């Protein structure tokens, strides 16, 4: 029994676990393992826990926070990855696991994957929404520039503005445009320009570089700061067609820093042309108006007589009437004169005295003195008075002969 007892090597659980642990560690050391991520979760400690699996096996993994803080893309279930780490035992559970030091996506670069993931997320949130994009002001006179004063971008922008639009002032917020912490500086600069308020547009820019060099402009905080800017933004990052998230969020994006400045120069030149057009149109319209009115005036002048002309016309009429009146009066007077003359003659002819002077006499019946024209009105014994050319006499009627006068006196 004793011998048996002494030949038996009895481990405690901890001892055997420790033994396995050292065998595993010695045999495998550090390994690369490819598989599909499943059951991914982030603990409150910041450590990642997930499993790697393929068609027939599953491997538990842990990726501690000090290691996972460098992972640029988002680990998620279903993603095919290659993990680097060491096989370890977790004694409390009696479970072996892979302690992951590095992870990279299978088939696609980690950075590219991170970019696609973030882009997808921001797209879903509406950060690239065309409806959110603001129009640039009619003419930005104050241009804010977020870039490094040590870079080529600021030189390009300032030169083009100076040459093409010297009426434009520039305010530069110098930031680092690559490397650790640069994204934060860029985002902060955009926010500060919004706080500062005195620029009409913000150009976010840097010159060309590798995808890694431009990476800060793909960072979420930059995209969000640009999205939240109340001042219209122009993104001008790089010299190639590598579109950054900053480009996608900005109100306007161009491929180079020079192109950003050129937008402003073009705006100025277009406005100057527009203003010239207005000046010409105003001059044309006013001369049309004046021309139209003056030809109207000529027409009206033909139709209208001046008051002076009308006065002269009336005066002439007056003179004419006056003359006619004068002649009429003269004529009338002459007629009257003539008629008066003949009346006098007639009167003279009719005067009884004239008849008497030719030997006729006039008899009246007394005492009434009525002129006797008919002998029948008389009877013998009537007293009559006879008037002669010279003097008169009274007589007594002896006989009346009432026959019509026989013609003999």
């Amino acid at each position, binding site marked *: 029994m004793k011998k048996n007892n002494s030949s038996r090597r009895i481990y405690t659980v901890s001892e055997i676990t420790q033994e396995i642990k050292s065998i595993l560690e010695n045999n495998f050391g550090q390994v690369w393992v490819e598989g599909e991520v499943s059951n991914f979760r982030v603990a409150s400690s910041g450590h990642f826990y997930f499993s790697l699996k393929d068609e027939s096996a599953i491997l538990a993994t842990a990726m501690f926070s000090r290691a996972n803080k460098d992972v640029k893309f988002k680990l998620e279930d279903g993603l095919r990855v290659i993990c680097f780490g060491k096989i370890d035992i977790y004694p409390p559970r009696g479970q072996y696991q892979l302690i992951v030091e590095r992870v990279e996506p299978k088939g696609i670069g980690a950075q590219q994957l991170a970019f696609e993931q973030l882009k997808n997320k921001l797209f879903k949130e509406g950060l690239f929404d065309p409806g959110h994009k603001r129009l640039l002001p*009619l003419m930005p006179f104050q241009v804010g520039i977020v870039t490094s004063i040590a870079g080529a971008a600021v*030189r390009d922008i300032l*030169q083009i503005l100076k040459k093409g639009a010297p*009426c434009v002032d520039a*305010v530069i917020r110098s930031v680092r445009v690559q490397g650790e912490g640069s994204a934060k500086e860029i985002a902060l600069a955009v926010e500060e320009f919004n706080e*500062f308020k005195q620029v009409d547009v913000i150009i976010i820019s840097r010159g060309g570089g590798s995808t890694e060099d431009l990476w800060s402009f793909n960072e979420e905080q930059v995209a969000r700061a640009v999205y939240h800017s109340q001042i219209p933004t122009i993104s001008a990052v790089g010299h190639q067609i590598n579109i950054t998230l900053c480009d996608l969020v900005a109100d306007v994006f161009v491929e180079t820093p020079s192109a950003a400045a050129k937008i402003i120069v073009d705006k100025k030149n277009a406005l100057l042309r527009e*203003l010239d057009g207005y*000046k010409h149109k105003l001059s044309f*319209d006013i001369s049309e108006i004046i021309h139209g009115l003056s030809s109207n005036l000529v027409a009206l002048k033909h139709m209208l007589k001046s008051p002076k002309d009308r006065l002269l016309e009336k005066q002439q009429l007056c003179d004419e009437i006056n003359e006619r009146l004068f002649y009429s009066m003269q004529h009338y007077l002459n007629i009257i004169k003539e008629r008066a003359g003949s009346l006098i003659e007639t009167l003279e002819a009719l005067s009884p005295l004239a008849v008497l002077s030719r030997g006729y006499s006039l008899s009246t019946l007394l005492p009434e003195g009525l002129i006797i024209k008919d002998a029948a009105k008389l009877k013998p014994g009537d007293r009559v008075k006879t008037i002669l050319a010279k003097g008169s006499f009274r007589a007594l009627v002896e006989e009346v002969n009432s026959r019509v006068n026989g013609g003999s006196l």
Partner: protein
Amino acid sequence: MKDKQSFEDEIKRLQKIVDELSSGKLTLGESLKKYEEGVKLAQGCSAILNEAQRKVELLMKKEGKFSLEKFDDTSLKEEA
């Protein structure tokens, strides 16, 4: 006057005057007044755009306060 807002206001006013004058609904006196004002606005706005006075400054923020520092961009002229 290089103020974005008042510049935009003047351009809008000018556009309105141009429309009014071409409408043909104004008296001669009104037309002449609009014409004069319009030409003055157009010349004023052009003068602003043709202005060659520019400032280049660096925006600094110290202890929560903004300040502007003159920036000499002539040194940038040569290819870096």
